[in-house]
Every structure is written in C-alpha cells, then in structure tokens.
C-alpha cells in the first residue's frame, strides 16, 4: 500500500512539473506572439528600418539573420561532424581525448559577451575581417562547435557496436563504415544538434554586436554580386541581425513606434525559429528515410 501511495504522489508531482513548464513556455510564446502579431505585415518584413520616423521595417535584419545562419552552419557542421566523428571513432581513449573533451566543454560554457570581445580582438582586428558576417559566423562557431562536436560524438557512440562489426566482417574500410553504415543511424541526433545550434544563431546578440556589427549598409536587393559592398550576399559587409536589432531599438530606439517594432521583430524571430525547426526536421526525415529505407525516424 505504501509503495502505491509513493508511486501516486511521484506521478502527480512529475505531471505537475511538466504541466508547469508547458504553461510557462506557452505563456511566454503566447505573450510574444500576441504583442507582436498585429505589427507584422508584408511591408514590415521587407522594408528597411527608419531611424526617427515611424513605419520602419526589419527586412535587412531578417535577411541578415538567415544569411548568418547559413554561413555559421557552413562552418560549424563540417567542423563539428569531423571533430565528433574523430572523437567517437578514431581517437584512442586517453589523455589527449580527455583534454579535447575538457576544452570543448569549457568552450561551451563561455559567456557570450566574452566570445564577442574575443571575436572583436582576434577576428575583427587582428585578422582584419572587420565588422562582417564572416566575423559573426566565426564567433558563433565558437559556441556552436562544442555542441555540434558533443552531439555528433554521442550520436555515433550510440549506434550499436554490432553495426560496425558487421561492416568490418564484410571487409568494408573504416571510412566506408563511418559514412554509410553509422552516419545514417546517427543522422536524427545530428539533425537535432544542428537545430539546437541554429537556435543559438538566431537568438545570439551579445557576441554579434562586436563581430557582425550593429549596423547594416544600405542594401540593394537587386544586386547579386557578392563582392559589391551594397550586395546583400556580400559576406564581408557588416550585418545587424534581428536579435541585435531588437536589443538596439529597445535600448536606444528613437522611432516613435520603437516598442511595436521590437514586439513585432520578436514575434518574427520566434516564428522564424519555429519554421526553421519544422523544415529542418522534415528535410532530415526525408534524408533519413532515403538512407535507411524506413518509414519513420526512430
């Protein structure tokens, strides 16, 4: 009888906690969307911001966020996959791997403002990349790499060892086993890791203020030459992202509708993250099915 009572209480406590978390999240999300949705319009999403007059939009910032995301993932995913696969499949357990793991963990707990200042010093000034999308992407890589490495390593480690043995017994090379036997099984976890790092790219502000900069040049969306300073595709131009923009108008916005713009921009940010999540999962599932001939992701 006593065991049953304990069981019941534990169940109630756990369910309550879970509901509490859901309620907090739903409340937060609802609040942001409720305050911002009314301000979102096609014009708001595509036009450039205005300094002191009403009616400015967030077009360049939204584009910058997405472009920065692509740049960051282009750097993070190959590096993270490479390092993670090395840690899981190639490195012999010992002091060096332990040391790498320690560094990766320390990196992931760096305060973002420190990473920002480090980026300013090293990437922006010493490397001479200036306030630019590339600088921002490199700074974000500092945070995202640890996450990507860990998740990749764990994803590969959690593939049953018998899969590898089966590959060896067939006379496959290690490289072939890693890329075609283990990778498809590890893919769902790797996609989750990519989505998590993407979330940080959208949300990060502190590290970007000093690396990607807090302003955007006047962009000409008809100019697709990536070397031209006014082209949106130029990765060496400064770029204020959506999150930085929200911070800026909240703290020093002069436009009379600054509060509404911040609310609208926040809602757009949340929706963008949501859409990215869904799309990434969907695409990931398609690839997983293609590689493993299964009907669902397990």
């Amino acid at each position: 009888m006593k065991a049953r009572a304990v069981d019941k209480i534990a169940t109630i406590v756990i369910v309550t906690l879970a509901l509490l978390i859901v309620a907090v999240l739903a409340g937060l999300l609802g609040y942001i969307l409720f305050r911002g949705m009314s301000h979102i319009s096609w014009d708001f999403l595509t036009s450039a911001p205005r300094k002191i007059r009403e009616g400015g939009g967030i077009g360049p910032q939204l584009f910058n966020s997405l472009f920065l995301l692509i740049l960051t993932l282009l750097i993070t995913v190959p590096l993270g996959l490479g390092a993670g696969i090395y840690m899981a499949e190639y490195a012999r357990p010992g002091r060096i791997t332990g040391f790498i793991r320690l560094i990766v963990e320390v990196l992931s707990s760096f305060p973002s403002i420190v990473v920002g200042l480090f980026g300013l010093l090293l990437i922006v000034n010493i490397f001479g990349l200036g306030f630019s999308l590339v600088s921002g992407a490199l700074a974000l890589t500092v945070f995202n790499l640890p996450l990507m490495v860990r998740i990749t390593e764990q994803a590969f480690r959690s593939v049953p060892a018998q899969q590898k043995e089966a590959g060896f017994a067939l006379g496959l090379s290690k490289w072939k086993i890693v890329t075609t036997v283990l990778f498809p099984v590890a893919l769902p976890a790797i996609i989750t890791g990519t989505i998590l790092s993407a979330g940080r790219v959208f949300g990060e502000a502190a590290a970007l203020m000093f690396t990607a900069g807090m302003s955007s040049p006047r962009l000409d969306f008809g100019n697709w030459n990536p070397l031209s300073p006014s082209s949106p595709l130029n990765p060496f131009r400064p770029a204020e992202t959506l999150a930085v923009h929200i911070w800026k108008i909240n703290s020093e916005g002069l436009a009379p509708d600054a509060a509404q713009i911040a609310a609208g921009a926040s809602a757009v940010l949340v929706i963008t993250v949501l859409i990215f999540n869904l799309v990434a999962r969907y695409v990931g599932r398609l690839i997983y099915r293609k590689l493993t001939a299964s009907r669902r992701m397990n």
Partner: protein
Amino acid sequence: MEATLTAPQILKAPKMERDFRTENLSIFYGTYEAVKGISLPFPEKSVTALIGPSGCGKSTFLRSLNRMNDEISGSTSKGSIWIDGVDINAPGTDVIKLRQKIGMVWQKPNPFYKSIYENIAFGPKYHGVKGKKALDEIVESSLRRAALWDEVKDRLKDSALALSGGQQQRLCIARALSVNPQILLLDEPASALDPVSTGKVEELIKELKEQLRIVIVTHNMQQAARVSDFTAYFYLGQLIEYGMTEKVFTNPENTMTQEYIMGRFG
C-alpha cells in the same frame, strides 16, 4: 577417416584437410592471455563446433579467425592462421581482402539500417560488383542460400529492421554469403531466436556446409551435437579436447569434457 581424430592427427592429414587451420594461436588482451596456443583444423564441408563455459576463450578465438580482434585496442596475438597456405595472422595481411573470404554472423541479428536489398547488395557493391542485373542476381542467390528469398522477395525495398528476429538472422547470414566467403563464422547464431527460427537456422547450417566450412560457437549442447561434425572443447583459454562430434559427445577422453557436456558445470 578414422572414427576419432585428435588435433595432431588431423594436422598430419592430407593437405585438403589442413588448408584452413590455426597453429599455436594465442590471443592477449593487454597481458591477459585469453587463448593459449591453440592448434585446430577446420576440415572442408564440415561444421566445427566450439564449446565451453563462458569466458573460456571460444568467442575470442572465433573472432580472431577473421582478425576482428584487431579492432579492439590492446588486443594482440601470436601464432598462425593458415588459409590456403597463407598465414593470415602475419603482419601485412590485407584484412579487408581477408574478411571477404570469411563471413561472420553474431548472436544478436545486426542488419544494417537499410532496405533488405541494400543489406545484401552493400558488400558486393563495395567490392566492385557493378550493374543492377549482377547485383539483383547476388541478392536473389544469397537470399535463396539463406532460405529467406520466398519470405521477402516481394518486399526487398522495405527496411530490414521490419523483419522478425529469425528472419533478420537469416538476412545476416545472407549478407555474409553475399561476398562469397569460403568460411562462415557463427557466434551463437541461434541463442536469441525462438525454437522455430532456431530450427530453420540449424537446417540452413547443414545445407551450407556442403558449400563452405562453418565454425560455430554455441552454448547449446544439443545444437552442437545436431549440427556439427567436429567439436572442440575449450576451458580457460585452452583446448581440452577435439574430435569428431559423435565421439566427443558419447565417449569423451577427458573427464572435464564429459562433465561439461553432461551439464555438471559451466
């Protein structure tokens, strides 16, 4: 052939009997000697069963036959493994080539997370078989040899993981057969299966031994008696007794073997 043959006698037998055998093979994990200088022949068209209590080194021995222990860090070996007059345990052996000659199947079915077709076609494709027709043929013949073709021929594109445990194990056997090995190593291939599937796998072993040599590790004495022609009893890394299965099971020379087979210990 005589009614019973001891290991030394078989080693002296005509070449046909000797072309796959181990000679003083020892396997170490660090400094621990898991297998102690074992010489065993694996005659053609026959099944050799390795029996013995857990930890006696029989699985380690089996794994060393296709150099799978190479993948375990800290594992080293001494002695020779002769296949067709070549010592494959010598340094410099191309293990990738070697493993094509020796198929392996484990206790737990481990199909790749791929379609049934891909599971079989994967190895041959990697080893250079080109063209859909050639691959189709290999897939069909491998599945037929593993007595699985009729059950799966209409759903070759389905995931291999959707098959039952027994079917998965036969798929793994088919996968091992796909690269045309001369030797098949089975590590307790039926211990995770239900009786019906076990029966099918045992039938299969009896059929396959007409085409290749089979070495099987098993904890099931009845199974060893049913499927094998030769039996080797291992204890603490040593070979205690080797001979024709009938003889080992009915009239073993060593009392330890007898006690193990009777189930008094192990």
